[in-house]
């Protein structure tokens, strides 16, 4: 992977201990008629720049709800969320859209690529809403695609790409505006185990270059590639620990059987 074309390093070494995400006692409830679903019951967390965090937990434990709040797609019902020292909970929809555009890259389990739209155009999507020229947007998009190893697939449509390739396009799209943080909600959930490790390899390399990553997974094999593991249960953090001796995904791939396709 070419480090020259790599998006957003933001002084990775210099500011290694700068807090990028600060969450204080965040609650989220959904009102369903009479019933109130309490999805988050007081979550506090601090994430430093350059960290690589996985969030694990049973289905329904509030992982996605939390990620949506981190990704500024949703607002907490109570509590504070500071992204790079900006108080997010007080922002307008318009300002939230700008933050999603500039500071956050989001990768989804279901890829969420636009069909009948080429890989390049999918990656260009965030640049359309940023204040950069069309030419600059295209240049960055090609670089982002090259970064995830799809420099030769720019004109392909999602239907012409494998699941792993589609997810890489989605990662390139998340990276194209050089965000401060990459959020991924079960990005390997729809992929076979080898492809999943390949995706983790990309994440590890991006993280090596200084990108802060928060990733949700329910597979311990996947979680082990991160630096820090957070366990959710019933809307609360149950465990938060550093991962020691994490394996390199690139090495793990060598030992996995090669797939037919």
């Amino acid at each position, binding site marked *: 992977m070419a480090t020259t074309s790599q998006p957003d390093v933001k002084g990775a070494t210099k500011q290694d201990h700068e807090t990028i995400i600060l969450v204080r006692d965040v609650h989220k409830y959904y009102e369903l008629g009479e019933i109130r679903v309490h999805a988050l019951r007081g979550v506090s967390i601090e994430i430093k720049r350059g960290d690589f965090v996985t969030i694990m937990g049973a289905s329904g434990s509030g992982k996605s709800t939390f990620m*949506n709040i981190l*990704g500024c*797609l*949703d607002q907490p019902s109570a509590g504070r969320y500071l992204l790079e020292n900006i108080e997010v909970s007080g922002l307008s*929809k*318009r300002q939230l*859209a*700008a933050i*999603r*555009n*500039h500071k956050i890259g*989001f990768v*989804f389990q279901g890829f*969420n*690529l*636009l069909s*009948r739209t080429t890989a390049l155009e999918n990656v260009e*999507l*965030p640049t*359309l*809403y*940023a204040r950069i020229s*069309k030419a600059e947007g295209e240049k960055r998009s090609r670089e982002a695609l090259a970064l995830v190893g799809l420099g030769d697939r720019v004109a392909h449509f999602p239907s012409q790409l494998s699941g792993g390739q589609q997810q890489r396009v989605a990662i390139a*799209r998340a990276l194209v*505006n050089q965000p401060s943080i990459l959020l991924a909600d079960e990005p390997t959930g729809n992929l076979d185990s080898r492809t999943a490790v390949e995706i983790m390899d990309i994440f590890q390399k991006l993280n090596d270059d200084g990108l802060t990553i928060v990733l949700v997974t329910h597979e311990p094999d996947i979680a082990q590639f991160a630096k820090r593991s957070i366990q959710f249960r019933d809307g609360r953090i149950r465990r938060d620990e550093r991962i020691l001796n994490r394996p390199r995904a690139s090495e793990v791939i060598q030992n996995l059987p090669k797939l037919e396709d």
Partner: protein
Amino acid sequence: MDLLAIIRIAMRALGRNKMRSILTMLGIMIGVGAVIAMLGVGQGARQTVQEQIQAMGSNLLFVGAGTVTRSGMHMGWGSTKSLIYDDMLAIMRECPTAHAAAPGSSSSGQVVFGNDNWATRVNGTEPQYFDIRVWPFQEGSAFTQNDVEMAANVAVIGETVRKNLFGATNSIGQTIRINNLPFRVVGVLVPKGTSAAMGDDQDDIILVPITTLQKKITGQNWLRWIMVSAVSRQASYAAQQQIAALLRDRHRIRPAEDDDFFVRNLADMADVADEAGRVMTLLLASIAGVSLIVGGIGIMNIMLVSVTERTREIGVRMAVGATERDVQQQFLTEAVVLSLLGGGIGILFGLSASYLITKTLGWPVLVSPVVIVIAVLFSMAVGVFFGFYPASRAAQLDPIEALRYE
């Protein structure tokens, strides 16, 4: 995002569903096309009518002999004998708004020249008639006042009569026979064509001195009509009043009795024709309105379907930084592109149709640029109006729910 990029995205989105987009545009296309075509034809017809009325002289007043009932119906035009030459002299003497007047009497006549034979109308009048009607000569000239005094056998012929009797040969100075009496042709009038208001051939006519007609052909000394020109177009309304009052007085008609004459004002007729044109235009405008609304509802319907179908796309766009406004603009632009394209194609259809129709009828094609500009603006307005609600629906979507939408 700049407008060009938005339009490009809109065009691509519409291009993905070509058939659907075309069907959606059809409503606007037909509406705009029909209106442009009908307006084009209508304007052409109106212009033709106005030109012909103008050519007759818009200061012109027509006094006809005949009974007019209280409700304004003419009973048996020319059946009364009360309109006489002295009435004309009185009009000239006592109506200050009357500029000139010419008497008229009429008969049908069988005209012969050599072996050629033609049945036509023969009118008797005085030379000022040609000035009042603004009717110039292509050859020769009018008979003179002297001819009138002498009851001379001289005739002025219309183009239709000339064509049928003389063809290519010269007509001036030739002797024709009207009801077996010899007449010398002194002038040929320029063709006026078919009257758009009455639908009769104005060139199928022979004019002779009034005295000649009365003494030698009809043997009647009353008039069928008097042509009066008012001093101005505005004055023609006053002249109409004055003449009516004068003639009622001269004919000793008591207040409760109906007139035995009628006064028609050509300025009035021009206004009536103009009014008819306006009503027609209004009618077309309402048809346009209805078809544009129907077309607009079609656009709204398809845009709502499109927003639902593309809920996930909207979610993705919002997740990567599209604001509500961006989404709103995108769908609004799609609606406007739909309606503008429909309107544009409609204009082309309408122009070709009106060209074909007017070409067939021999009228001038008259589609003013203003109409086209209005059509464009209207189609755009339809897109904005009917695209607004679907676009707002799209913009108001919650990104998380939109992303989760199956």
